[in-house]
């Protein structure tokens, strides 16, 4: 029997940690420390995942099929072979997209209500 793909909208909203990890992996596979650095960069240092939060979230995302481990190494000479690399699955990619769309629509509402002042005025919203 063919496996029915889960509806990603039913899994929303995502936790901030999960969404940031999906975003970090959106442009390619990465290992744990790389993901952590990417998340800190994305949030200008406002969100710093600890090892427990990072691997706890990764564990759940692996179980739920949002991400998967990758066997490929960018360059075995340069890389520590003990590191594990992760990449998005199809479900993970769809999930990142629908969550981003959900957040974008929330921002539109905030703009319409002039909660995002300058941006709203410069875009002529509201």
């Amino acid at each position: 029997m063919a496996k029915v793909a889960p509806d990603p909208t039913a899994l929303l909203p995502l936790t901030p940690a999960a969404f940031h990890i999906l975003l970090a992996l959106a442009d390619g596979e990465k290992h744990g420390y790389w993901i952590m650095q990417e998340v800190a960069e994305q949030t200008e240092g406002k969100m710093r995942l600890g090892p427990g939060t990072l691997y706890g979230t990764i564990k759940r995302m692996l179980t739920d099929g949002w991400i998967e481990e990758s066997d490929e190494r960018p360059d075995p000479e340069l890389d520590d072979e003990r590191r594990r690399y992760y990449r998005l699955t199809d479900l993970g990619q769809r999930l990142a997209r629908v969550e981003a769309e959900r957040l974008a629509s929330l921002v539109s509402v905030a703009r319409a209500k002039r909660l995002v002042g300058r941006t709203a005025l410069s875009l002529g919203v509201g």
Partner: protein
Amino acid sequence: MASTPISAASFSERVYEWLLVVYPAAYRREYGPLMLQLFRDLRRDTWRRGKRWGLAMLWLRVLGDVGTTAWAEHVSEFRRSIVNKPVEKFGVPPSWGIWLIVSAAILAAGLLTKVLMSETGQSILLATAVLIAANLIAATIMEVVTRSGGAILGAMLTLVASVLVPVLWVDDASSWLRENPVNGGIIILIASFWIARGKSRWYLFLVALVLAVAQIGVSFL
């Protein structure tokens, strides 16, 4: 490049490695080395940027992280063990332990019945018979409905331990059962230690402990 003094680096890593024991064993086996590797990278970069102050701030963050995530992993492990019941990880099939505790709850309810019947002037032996019958009927129904072994065995263990042993062992069983109300509770405690030993099944022990205390309390009524 400024590197961390070796003693401070190895001490930090050793402390972090030691801290990982607060996570569930299965999680630790899978992710412990990765977390340690991550901590090592973090510690190295933090030292390069902020020296001792940076390291102190890192430790504050890490302690908060361990405190919150270890608890979450234990809850997650508990849920998974209830849903999947991984037989191979137990010394005995997990259903035995669970049914032992379920039957202990029935036993506690039966003891309450026994006490209430005694107070209304009924025979203590009749009350004990009601207790045994209720326990075995409930265990049989559980075993048939759930099609899992262990319910009857669990019920028998608690019955034998807390009711039949004193009946067979003590001359004046009726008064012994009345005057030594803690026997069932103690037996449940011993059983829960047996179930929980070396298996990280701390929650089974916790549930059994609550049941044992409840039973001892009820017996004193």
